[in-house]
């Protein structure tokens, strides 16, 4: 028979854990809302940018730019986007697993390095020979402290510069895409070289271009790349909060069940103890009578 006091302490401890997990769930829900709003606010910009871009590249050969030349893939940079904090289920592990997988299989023949955005990937890779952060300054580790377009575009600009310098032949983003609060989709996409938008219909509007098409295109491509990084980061942030919310919800449910079970055992033990005491008293009384 388990000790009553032991069970009582366990109930208290499970209850306080439950309070923490349910509080974390609420915090994540609030943060998720904010992260989702940020995605919504960015969407019109991204859409319009894409529209103009496809308008332009429909009439121009876009495959000649610095960022779109296809080279033989020797040096690959994988950008792993994870979170700064844990307790969010398989969120970070999914990214890290995919990165490991890419290193071992798809790019096993090439020289691969990993740029970690977010503390979880950084912690894993900082001692590994795959780690690189050269030229990125403090940015990669603190990006999620303050996720602004400015910070994201700094990283994107450095990625573009290193690609243009020939340091990498391919840059890949691995991150969790936000689908809804409960579902995160692991996304692996090629950041550089730029894949030209396929099958877009150029609109038939006769625009006046200031100063001219090429220059505008040369300006727009880097901007759309920056947006791509920014979007991946925002998506990852929203997905992180979604994942944490789900994980904490489950944890709270589990804790509730555990408490229920423990209470049952506790009451059984209490009843057994009382029955035992009564039996003793009755037996004692009987003995006195006799």
């Amino acid at each position: 028979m388990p000790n009553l006091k032991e069970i009582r302490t366990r109930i208290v401890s499970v209850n306080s854990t439950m309070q923490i997990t349910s509080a974390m769930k609420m915090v994540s829900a609030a943060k998720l809302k904010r992260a989702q709003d940020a995605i919504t606010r960015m969407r019109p910009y991204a859409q319009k940018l894409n529209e103009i871009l496809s308008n332009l590249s429909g009439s121009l050969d876009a495959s000649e730019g610095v960022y779109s030349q296809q080279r033989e893939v020797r040096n690959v940079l994988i950008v792993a986007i994870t979170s700064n904090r844990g307790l969010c289920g398989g969120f970070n592990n999914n990214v890290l697993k995919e990165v490991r997988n890419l290193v071992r299989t798809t790019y096993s023949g090439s020289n691969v390095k990993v740029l970690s955005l977010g503390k979880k990937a950084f912690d894993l890779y900082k001692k590994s020979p795959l780690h690189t952060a050269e030229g990125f300054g403090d940015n990669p580790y603190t990006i999620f402290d303050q996720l602004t377009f400015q910070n994201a575009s700094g990283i994107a600009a450095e990625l573009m510069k290193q690609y243009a310098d020939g340091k990498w032949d391919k840059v890949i983003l691995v991150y969790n895409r936000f689908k809804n609060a409960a579902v995160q989709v692991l996304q692996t996409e090629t950041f550089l070289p730029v894949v030209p938008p396929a099958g877009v219909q150029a609109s038939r509007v006769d625009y006046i271009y200031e100063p001219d098409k090429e220059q505008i295109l040369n300006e727009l491509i880097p901007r759309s790349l920056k947006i791509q990084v920014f979007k991946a980061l925002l998506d990852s942030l929203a997905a992180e909060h979604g994942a944490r919310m789900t994980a904490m919800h489950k944890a709270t449910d589990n804790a509730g069940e555990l408490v229920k079970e423990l209470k049952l055992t506790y009451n059984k033990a209490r009843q057994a103890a009382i029955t035992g005491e009564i039996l003793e008293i009755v037996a004692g009384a009987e003995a006195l009578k006799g």
Partner: protein
Amino acid sequence: MVVEIITPESTLFEGKATYVYLPGSDGGLGILNNHAPLISSLKKGVVRVKDEGGKEHRFEVNGGTAEVLRNKVIILAE
């Protein structure tokens, strides 16, 4: 005409206007009603929007792109 000024993080301005001044990379551009379709890159400067009440709004931009199409001006600012 309708003017929208959008940044990646928010929409700065959305509404009707009678006149828009853009800091085009080859010099300033003034856009009035019924302007021909135009795509222009912008340099660092100030976008000025005069709304229907004659009030002027000023927005600092750090470069960007503007599209004018069918009485709609969309400014992608940075």
